[in-house]
């Protein structure tokens, strides 16, 4: 068995032992359910509480389409609380092993830095994708049930696009985990930087080419309008280059023993 497989297997067992493989999908499932349920029942809740001056429910307001509900799950649930939870789940991916000396210890064995980093990013990305899928399917189910059906091809394409943004998130957090020694700093810097990326997405089409968060917007755009948006190829290229750059930086950092 090669070292990548051994290390990945170890990561996986660790996720099982720490119940990460259980709680992360559950949290995402709850997040996914929240959006359609809230959008469906909120008008009724407000109405039944009633009597509040100044709040006016427009009875003629159109019930949102399923597409919009699913898109808002991505935008307002996964892109906010979801990112923060993924950051918290992944922040000590390398930092913990730097702190207890396991990283140095493992590297005294014939293990390449690439297979070490590869196993870390791959397993944590797979867990994130799995959790996201659970949450997304839950949201999709309730959306179809409470609102209107969404074409399955759009649903899958949007998911695939969102996974690109997710790969950037995981690599970014792993990189900070390689650089910094304090989990709090890693979490804070990751949250600020990633939410900032997400915030400036959509401001200007040229800016979006260089912004991996553009893929989150493209995912919603696929759901609502069916179009991926302009210059997605460039956006994809830039995102992959950025991820490659981050991976090489981590590799260099560990090879130079700056940890």
């Amino acid at each position, binding site marked *: 068995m090669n070292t990548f497989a051994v290390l990945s297997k170890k990561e996986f067992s660790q996720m099982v032992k720490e119940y990460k493989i259980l709680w992360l999908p559950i949290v995402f499932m709850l997040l996914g359910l929240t959006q359609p349920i809230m959008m469906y029942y909120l008008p009724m809740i407000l109405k039944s509480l009633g009597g509040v001056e100044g709040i006016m429910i427009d009875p003629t307001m159109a019930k949102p389409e399923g597409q919009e509900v699913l898109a808002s799950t991505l935008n307002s649930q996964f892109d906010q609380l979801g990112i923060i939870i993924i950051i918290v789940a992944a922040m000590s991916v390398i930092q913990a092993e730097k702190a207890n000396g396991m990283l140095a210890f493992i*590297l005294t*064995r*014939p293990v390449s830095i690439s297979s070490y980093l590869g196993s870390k990013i791959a397993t944590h990305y797979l867990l994130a994708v799995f959790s996201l899928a659970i949450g997304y399917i839950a949201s999709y189910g309730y959306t179809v049930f409470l609102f209107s059906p969404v074409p399955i091809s759009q649903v899958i394409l949007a998911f695939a696009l969102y996974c690109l943004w997710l790969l950037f998130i995981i690599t970014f957090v792993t990189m900070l985990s390689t650089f910094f020694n304090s989990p709090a700093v890693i979490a804070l810097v990751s949250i600020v930087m990633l939410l900032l990326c997400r915030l400036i997405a959509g401001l200007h089409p040229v800016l979006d080419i260089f912004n991996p968060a553009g893929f989150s917007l493209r995912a919603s755009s696929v759901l609502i309008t069916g179009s991926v948006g302009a210059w997605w190829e460039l956006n994809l290229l830039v995102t992959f280059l950025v991820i490659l750059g981050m991976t090489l930086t981590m590799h260099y950092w560990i090879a130079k023993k700056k940890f």
Partner: protein
Amino acid sequence: MRLEINNVTKKFKHKTAVNHFSMVIEENECVGLIGPNGAGKSTLIQIIADILYADEGSIVLDGQNISKKKNQIGYLPQYPNFYSWMTAYDTLLFMGTLSGISKNQLHKDIPLILTKVGLSKEAQSKVGAFSGGMKQRLGIAQALLHKPTLIIMDEPVSALDPIGRREVLNLLKEIKSETTILLSTHILGDAEEICERFVVIKDGQKIEDATKEQLLHRNQESAIYLVLQKDDVDWLEKVAQLPYVKKVENYEEGFKIHVEQVQVDAYRLLQNAIDQKIAFTKFEIGVKESLEDTFLTLVVDV
């Protein structure tokens, strides 16, 4: 495996931990690296194990760079740490497969090595519940598991109880004939048992490199060590008056008598004692300093 350390220097921000250090360890030699706390032992060992980079100089193993030889090296850190959720057995399986040993081979070897380090009962216990000494034993097991030809150990026995220490020393004696061993310690008694050569390091510099015999021989004194029965202690006053006796001093539970020519004077002293009907419990010619004394004279600033 032959290990060459060429002029290695490592500086940290405010301190030079290792300063132009060179030595060669021949194949199957056992070398004890000794020195006081903070002398640079651990830094040097981490440089050899490729955990730290040297600012200057190089480490050469059988003429090659260390990164090509990692599967032949067994390394034990000063405070071995493992994944607390793994069992001892899984830890060895994990470290073993990382070194490229097949699963089948490992399933055969692991129970053997666990028995040797005295952990066979704990094979299925979680490492998180292990005491410091048990972790140390596991650390030794993982360092030996892949049958390396070079073993580098940072304080291998310092954290162990006397039983564990004995087991580990026996284990090292067993593999000594076919393995190059470098171990650091500040407990000389342990190193003395397995190593035939000592390198003393202080403030990052090599201040001594000698075999055990050389070290001991160098510090042999021309003195007579004797232990007397209590009633005869008065005799020592007369001894001090003798022309060939230079000095009488207390030493351990007896006395050290410095004379001019040990061989001749010892006989005269003995004759004198017999004439006076003095009974000795111990009479030793030529007082040897222990390795510990030698070490102290080397490293302590006067």
